[in-house]
């Protein structure tokens, strides 16, 4: 989903930076609050952040004959909400733009908006919607992760379409073109990522159920049900 350095006109770089910065500031403030409230949240933050590091470094071939990165942001969005996730994503994207020439400093804002803000916000909305229903928690994790991943790429397509409207059909038709490149490639990856992170969540539930209950990520009953059945 990385937009390469130099591929966005500077006006758009500024627009996306202006959207990203307040979210990051809020994320840092939230992060401090969460950690002050419960030091035991720190290892959980390490695990969810670690998975963003691992998954976003994997360049996986996809069925369209092209390859793409998973994002891994869903797990962190569930546990810590989208704003803290955007801070972790900013760190990962900074690493990639400095050392890997993947993305860049001017387009970092746009990449943070797609991977760190829109994707996790959509994922978090789905989580809140399904949280108190009878939907199995692993299914919730799967849906959140897969859709957070998908919407990251939808946002990238939109960012590029806004900067490069097609001569015929304008923004809408170039949006469809970019969606064809990014989002279609991403569908199978999003599904696999969803399943893998649901599996990871199963291990977190098995090892550290108390932190999930204490942070009110899922209710005690849901966690106990999940432990009983899986």
């Amino acid at each position: 989903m990385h937009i390469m350095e130099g591929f966005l006109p500077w006006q758009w770089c500024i627009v996306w930076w202006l959207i990203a910065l307040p979210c990051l500031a809020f994320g840092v403030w939230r992060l401090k609050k969460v950690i002050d409230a419960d030091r035991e949240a720190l290892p959980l933050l390490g695990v969810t952040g670690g998975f963003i590091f691992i998954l976003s470094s994997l360049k996986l071939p996809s069925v369209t004959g092209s390859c793409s990165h998973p994002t891994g942001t869903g797990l962190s969005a569930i546990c810590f909400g989208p704003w803290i996730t955007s801070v972790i994503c900013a760190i990962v994207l900074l690493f990639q733009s400095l050392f890997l020439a993947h993305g860049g400093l001017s387009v970092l804002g746009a990449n943070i908006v797609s991977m760190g803000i829109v994707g996790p916000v959509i994922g978090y909305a789905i989580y809140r919607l399904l949280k108190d229903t009878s939907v199995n928690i692993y299914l919730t994790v799967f849906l959140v992760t897969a859709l957070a991943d998908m919407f990251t790429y939808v946002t990238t397509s939109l960012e590029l379409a806004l900067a490069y409207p097609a001569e015929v059909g304008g923004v809408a038709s170039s949006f469809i073109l970019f969606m064809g490149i990014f989002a279609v490639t991403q569908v199978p990856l999003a599904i696999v990522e969803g399943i893998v992170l649901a599996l990871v969540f199963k291990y977190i539930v098995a090892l550290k159920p108390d932190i999930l209950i204490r942070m009110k990520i899922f209710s005690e009953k849901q966690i106990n049900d999940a432990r009983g059945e899986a």
Partner: protein
Amino acid sequence: MAKNYFLEILAGVAILVFCGVFLYTSSTMTGAEFAGSDNVGSGMIAELSGKSVDSFTPLIPQWQPPSGEIEACLFALQAALGGIFVGGVFGYWIGQKKSMSETTTNQ
């Protein structure tokens, strides 16, 4: 028993299907490249704006990995960094759980 490992089995099957479909499509589709959607996207931008890909220069000067191998190495390093955290924390939790169950049995 099978029910206990449902997610593990599902993940294994999903990855196998994914690899199978990928191998099939990449062997039947000619001209398919192992380039990445980022690169294909860059080509599309060039097409839409009527400029060549090379005419896009970084707005902010950027360090480029000197070769593909070094880039791959740095990518692996990034994954390793994440792996250290995940493995470390899971190990910490397992240890914590063990010492907790030991203290309860000793009492």
